[in-house]
């Protein structure tokens, strides 16, 4: 407990700056508006719109992860939080894509009308 950090020391470790929040907000705002605009105005085909909004969502997620949650910006190596995030994301993809694949496959083999 003699080793615990003081308020000043903790404050020095936090990565938020006005700049990061401004960029994060602006980028998220723009990406959101574009997404909604694409769907509302129906300028493109459904397929293109679908891929676009997914891409925009991923982009905005990256923006928020970097500028709001400061992922990857830990000072102490190894960057366990970043590693944990990457691994979580990987497992998440496996579970979601795996489940969608399995359920789609199963549903396709059901009797018609079920």
């Amino acid at each position, binding site marked *: *407990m*003699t080793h615990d950090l003081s308020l000043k020391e903790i404050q020095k470790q936090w990565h938020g700056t006005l700049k990061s929040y401004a960029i994060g907000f602006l980028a998220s705002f723009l990406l959101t508006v574009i997404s909604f605009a694409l769907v509302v105005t129906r300028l493109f085909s459904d397929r293109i719109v679908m891929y676009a909004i997914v891409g925009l969502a991923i982009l905005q997620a990256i923006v928020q992860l970097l500028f709001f949650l400061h992922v990857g910006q830990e000072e102490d190596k190894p960057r*366990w939080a970043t590693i*944990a995030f990457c*691994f*979580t994301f990987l*497992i998440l993809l*496996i*579970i979601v894509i*795996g*489940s969608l*694949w*399995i*359920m789609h*496959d*199963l*549903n*396709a*083999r059901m009797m018609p009308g079920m």
Partner: protein
Amino acid sequence: MFGRLTLDAFKHESSQNGAVFSMLFGAICLIGLISYLKRWKWLWNEWLTTVDPKRIGIMYIVVVLIMFLKGFGDAIMIRLQQAMSVGDSHGFLSSTHFQEVFSSHGTTMIFFVAMGAIFGLMNLIIPLQIGARDVAFPFLNALGFWLFASGAFLTIVSLTIGSFSTAGWLAYPPLSGIEYSPNEGIDYWIWAVQIAGVGSTLSGINFLVTILKMRCPGMTLMKMPIFTWSALCTMPLVVLAFPILTATLYMLTLDRYLGMHFFTVDGGGNYMMYVNLIWAWGHPEVYIIMLPMFGVFSEIVPTFSEKRLFGYVSMVWALIFIAFISFIVWLHHFFTMGASPTVNVFFAIMTMIIAIPTGVKIFNWLFTKFRGRVHFTSPMLWFFAFLLNFTFAGMTGILLSSPPVDFQVHNSLFLIAHFHGMAIGGVLFGFFAAFTYWFPKFTGFFLDETLNRYAFWCWLSGFLLAFMPLYMLGFMGATRRLDHYDASTGWHPLFVIVGIGAFIILIGATIQFFGLFWSIINRKKNWDHTGGDPWNGRTLEWSISSPPPIYNFAVIPTVDQLDPLWAIKRGEAPIPQKRYENIYLPINTPMGLYIGIFSLIFGFAMTWHIWWLAIVSFVSILVCVIIRLSGEDEHEIITVAQVKEIEAAHARRMKSYE
């Protein structure tokens, strides 16, 4: 006022009354004993409010042993029923009661024996092995235990008030849906598992951060003891798989309580999705209970071979690989649900792949013993039993991983034999080995070795007799969960043999329980006079007294190689200097216990639809959490003088043994 709880809930079938009364009687005796010995204050201060992982670990093991009695009792009933219930005879259990028994058996053994065993062992061993004085989150750790105990107790309550689930340990819908199981049984199961599951998740977070952050100076990852590595590989599984269980059971709960259509037959529900999601959790779960036991054997084999672990690096990579792949095999639990060959084959191949690193581990253990000086202590005997049974069952797993084969034997007794070989041969024998191996560390005396050996031979022979014939029965067409069968099947003789095997295991378990009490009574005879290192160990936990002082290490060790204690013994590392400092330890708190109790009440209230009580207990939990998160972390200080005295007392004891 009482929801759907009526006096009917207290009436049971005659076959159940015995269990009910003996449990109530036992509880009253226990309360009476504690009162007679005037130990309530001691119990409160030393155990119920503790945040010391050493104490919490022991409490986990106590709950595990109690729940093992329940689960094993269920097993005996199953085997007895199946040995008797053939042709005109229908045994002594009604169909409904039989279904409750096998559901309770699986639920208890997986959630409250196996999970409790691994977290109990981790609590006891990890801080000591990494040279730490505590875990990263002492309160969260305690809370995890109390949630676990709460879930366990809820299943015990289900024995006396109302009845338990009849839908198996995984409660597949539509059977577990509100339409086909409207009564309280499934709800008991849901809440017990959910509450314990949250506890596991929190404990998982705690140990993950503990291992990453609390290692002593110099202990890089590749210098960690292998048991700690196995725990480190297991924790991501806990942290990432249990939320899937939480979400899936949540959806089942919503179906049952709010009329939703996730898994219903109508309304567009898809009950196959439940099977998929529950096994996406379920497969990592079986590795969660197994990997720490691999770690246990990796500690025991080198110690009792007087040789360091062969291929430490490959063992570590094998653990990492197994942990990762365990997320990509889950469909092999439902090959027969009807997916196309492409899907089935993908998961079949993934399943076969996971056998490879497991094989690497087996060979490494064997190579460790080669040219070593092998001591056939009972932990080592458990290792041999593990080697035989786990490997054999593992190979039947490879058989099962082939969809065409699985189509023949899925949900037959062949499957039951396979997974019991893994669960008993791997998890349970690992736990027995660990229990015997580390028992002297936390008590200061040995378990009676002779009784250990008798118990071992009963378990090994009983296990072989109880489970090998099941493979044959599976091939002969016997499915699982049968409470009756025709005489013309020809299964009866095998079921009798299996029943005898179960009975021999019962003898073994009885010897173990008796042996525990016998060893405690005779502890002066079996005292550890080595000062904390009875097995000539290699890792840091053997470098401190038995039992360890409350602060574990008077001086935080610094390590520069694997097996740091061995290094000291061989003169390759210096003996730690006695430069003491004040030690700060977190103080006790009753909040973990309170949240556990309120969770128990919440689960009970939700089960019986006593809505006002559910709201009150939930709000109480919130209040406890807020109170806990509003205080400052307080510590007790152990001064340099006190540390000096504790260490000096230990030194004096050592001198007196010479």
